[in-house]
């Protein structure tokens, strides 16, 4: 990673974390639906950078969200999992080529981008809500929360990526 990229990622980390805990955790659309847009950090983390570093930073990001929302370690667990699974999901969505010719998220087709974001968001949300609610008898609540928050998050993430598209490239 170059200096420039390190700086961008540090800023992204702090801004997304503060945005999440100050604004997005308090939206409560129809009572309980909140988007989790801080995933953008994990989604956009340079594809060619160290995987170990990504896992560690995902944990740190999740843990800081947990500290603010009094939720034990649920965000940390979900983030570590998607951080770990990201290389496989990248391969699945963009094909093997992503490792060699530095695929950029805003250059791939919309279908591939949507697939990648949706998979990441839904895996993250499912783990998040399973651990947060933590009771098999509330499986319906887990699934509905995952579905509605997931849709909300995907839409918000797409919008944010669209807004900052020119700056990224």
């Amino acid at each position, binding site marked *: 990673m170059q200096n420039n990229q390190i700086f961008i990622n540090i800023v992204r980390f702090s801004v997304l974390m*503060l945005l999440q805990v100050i604004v997005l955790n308090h939206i409560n659309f129809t009572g309980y639906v909140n988007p989790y847009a801080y995933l953008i950090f994990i989604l956009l983390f340079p594809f060619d950078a160290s995987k170990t570093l990504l896992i560690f930073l995902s944990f740190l990001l999740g*843990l800081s969200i947990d*500290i603010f929302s*009094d939720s034990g*370690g649920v965000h*940390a667990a979900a983030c*570590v999992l998607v951080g770990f699974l990201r290389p496989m999901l990248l391969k699945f969505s963009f094909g093997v080529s992503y490792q060699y010719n530095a695929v950029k998220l805003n250059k791939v087709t919309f279908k591939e981008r949507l697939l990648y974001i949706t998979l990441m968001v839904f895996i993250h949300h499912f783990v998040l809500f399973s*651990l947060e609610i933590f009771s098999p008898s509330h499986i319906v609540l887990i699934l509905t929360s995952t579905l509605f928050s997931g849709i909300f998050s995907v839409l918000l993430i797409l919008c944010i990526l669209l807004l900052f598209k020119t700056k990224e490239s």
Partner: protein
Amino acid sequence: MQQIIYFFIKNKNFLLFALLFLVSFILTLQSHSYHNSKLISSTNFFSGKIYNVTSNITEYFDLKQQNKILLEQNSMLLKFQANSNNPILQKALDSTLSKNFKFTGARVINNVYSKTNNHITIDKGHNDSLEIDMGVITSKGLVGIVNKTSGKYARIQSVLNTKSQINAQLKKSKHFGFLTWNTQNPQVVQLTEIPKLAPIAIGDTIITGGNSSIFPKGVLVGSVANYTLQNNDSYTVDVRLFNDMTNLSHVYVIKNKNKQEIIQLQLSDDAE
């Protein structure tokens, strides 16, 4: 030996993932089983400070509403004061909300009500002599119980928490039960284990019982919205809270001065 090291290097990503996932899982388990999780909470210096700054800004948005609530409370207190020459009322006041309880005002700096286990953070901590297991109310009614304190901040386990079990009773008949929450609606909590014999009707008032040393008897909770008979022996009652839990700004923390004495008495009873 070389092989072991090679194995570690080869699988370092997976091992790091497994380790960190385990750590977060343990933190999650701890927060689900132990009622005041030690490490991860919003009462620490850093997050407390940030919540304090943001609430300093956002509290201007509903100043009007909060002013109205304080005004209502003031007029109620003035009414009490005007009537307090009446000796019967004076006696009643003394026996219920008497000198045994001390009230501390605090400001809500973070309020969550969309999860299954909700917490509220306030800007007073053990520097203001707040302790774990103190009750928290507003002028309208019940809010929750303090379950973690730091120097300047405290965390409240709100009634909207599946782990809350607060003693409450019917105002007219003294039949008591426990307040729980089924996570469906932040305006409605459930009162369980009300005996079948209790004369209950929609619209009845629910107040806290005097059985716990946390709340004084008679703090308003809510009104009966609906009730169903469970297993033919007890009612589960839907209670519509008087408090709007989604809009809290100022709360009062109750300190029971005789708490130590009560607990000691109860413990000595157990020992025999």
